[in-house]
């Protein structure tokens, strides 16, 4: 076990997989950095510090720095993956998915189905996402609902250093297209990481806290916020069963149902806006499949129906806070029928 920051885990995991399998390649803007400059290649090693040293080790044929051309990055990664490579593409900010949506939505996600199951496209699309940097409406969004809604894509949202290793290894070796969402605010988070080969199969939630009163479902940065809220609620005698879902597609329905059937109360925490969201998706699932277990209406703490604003005060008001999570849990606990 070694203690590492998530950004270093990402680089090390890619390194391990590139060493293990020659077909693994990387593409993205400035993933090498400094190409064609006096400072030379690897002057930055990726703006998120997630690819330093890989170009020097594997060369330009496998670590491919690209122009700013998101459609071509995803298209090229898709084409390479369709023809025998395992491409890891980086979109510098998840918001830039807008530029390359066709390649993801109409191409990558649908190849296998359209081609009658006769192809595979083992691409991993890494996208840093989320608020916390006051980066304003075009650099702060949580886009997991959009990609979770697309049949053909698997969607991963790691929140710990260990999970990042296990899930990214699985993503690279997975034969289906994977969207790997990295919360920008978690890159510096440190945690113990298992040595050697470590894979976490998709579709298995992580139990963060155990409790019998309220089930809390969360992803990304919201997991840590919910953990804080759960600690505060525990002091007031409210036990929270907090699940970090880890993958939104496939989804660990079994863990969700088992928990809700035990607690009878559900609180969903989602950084994204509330409409047609991952929160509403989970809510519909539980309302449909565990209606009889529910002792209170399903609570949702989400961003508002607005873009992510710039100013510090506005972004803070936008992002769900531990206080809001506590309040929603208390509300669920206080509900009385009729």
């Amino acid at each position: 076990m070694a203690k590492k920051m998530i950004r270093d885990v990402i680089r090390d995991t890619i390194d391990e997989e590139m060493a293990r399998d020659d077909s693994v390649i990387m593409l993205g803007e400035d993933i090498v950095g400094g190409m064609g400059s006096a400072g030379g290649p690897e002057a930055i090693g990726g703006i998120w510090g997630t690819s330093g040293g890989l170009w020097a080790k594997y060369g330009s044929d496998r670590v491919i720095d690209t122009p700013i051309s998101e459609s071509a990055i995803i298209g090229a990664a898709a084409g390479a993956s369709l023809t025998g490579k395992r491409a890891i593409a980086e979109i510098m900010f998840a918001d830039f998915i807008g530029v390359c949506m066709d390649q993801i939505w109409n191409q990558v996600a649908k190849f296998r189905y359209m081609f009658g199951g006769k192809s595979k496209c083992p691409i991993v699309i890494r996208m840093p996402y989320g608020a916390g940097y006051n980066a304003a409406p075009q650099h702060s969004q949580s886009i997991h609902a959009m990609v979770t809604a697309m049949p053909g894509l698997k969607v991963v949202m790691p929140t710990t250093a260990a999970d990042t290793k296990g899930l990214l290894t699985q993503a690279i070796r997975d034969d289906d297209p994977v969207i790997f969402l990295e919360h920008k605010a978690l890159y510096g988070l440190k945690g113990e990481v298992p040595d050697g080969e470590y894979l976490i199969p998709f579709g298995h939630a992580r139990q963060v806290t155990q409790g019998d009163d309220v089930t809390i479902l969360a992803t990304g940065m919201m997991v840590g916020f919910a953990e804080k809220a759960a600690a505060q609620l525990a002091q007031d005698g409210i036990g929270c069963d907090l699940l970090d879902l880890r993958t939104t597609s496939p989804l660990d329905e079994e863990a969700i149902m088992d928990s809700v059937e035990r607690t009878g109360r559900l609180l969903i925490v989602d950084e994204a806006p509330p409409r047609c969201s991952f929160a509403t998706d989970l809510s519909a699932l539980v309302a449909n499949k565990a209606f009889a277990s529910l002792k209170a209406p399903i609570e949702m703490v989400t961003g508002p129906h607005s873009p992510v604003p710039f100013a510090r005060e506005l972004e803070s008001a936008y992002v769900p806070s531990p206080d809001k999570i506590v309040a929603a849990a208390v509300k669920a606990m206080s509900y009385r029928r009729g």
Partner: protein
Amino acid sequence: MQHSREALIQAYRQMKTIRAFEERLHDDIALGEIAGFTHLYAGQEACAVGVCEHLGPADYIISTHRGHGHCIAKGCDVVGMMKEIYGSSDGLCKGKGGSMHIADINKGMLGANGIVGAGAPIAVGAGITAKSTGNVSIAFSGDGACNQGTTFEAMNMAVVLKLPVIFVFENNHYSEHTGESYAVGAESMTVRSAAFGMKAIKANGIDFFSVYDAMRELIDYCKAGNGPASIELDTERFYGHFEGDPQRYRGKGELDRLREERDCLKVFRTKVTEAKLLEGKDIDAIDTEVEALIERAVAESKAAPRPTAAHVLEDVYISY
């Protein structure tokens, strides 16, 4: 091209305002006064001002993530811009957009933009409007955005529709952290633009007069109904891609050399004083005036009202 004394003073004032604005931001960001990602325009002032001095409110521009210079050159309120970057609810965009999204539609400034390559297609649309009023639409892009498919599509559509759109490529030689020679496959942006079937020229992006004269020619060309045009401006940026960028891609002493040899404000001062069009004291007086304006902008920004949670849901729609 002959310039009146007033026109020279105005051009220099605009360039100096951009420079002072950016240098102050550089300092205040280092002090932690400003949130978010900020991309400074210092070094490229001759481009924005050389283009925008030809334009009126009914001409349109669209900008990039490195947008402060274009905003100032197109007449956006400098105090309102500073307040915006400081995140005040009294800012030009009420603290919602910050540095990367400053816009003032009434001034014909269609916004800085957080998405590389997003501007050119929008400029084509503004070109449809401009065509109907006898005006022009300008798409500012960098050597990074010139590689986006959106930019290619916009250039082709502007040719096909014969629109008065001018694609201004400010080549500061770095797309973020990558050198131009690596990322731009064509010999130049001019060669590439010409291949789309439009008039394409180059100008010296650190010389206001070179940019200004070239733009006069292109604007006249577009207004005569000849369709779009393109210009590549060879320029320099004096700071990183964003504030906080350690700029390890730069060569040793590169920034010092650029500031010494390729500073568009110094070039302007030398040209106008040697030609005896302005005196050194005229320029010094503008420097003093501009420094006072920036000082006032910062003081007002620090005292300006802050947004509250109640503002988050405002302006998502006009009515809902």
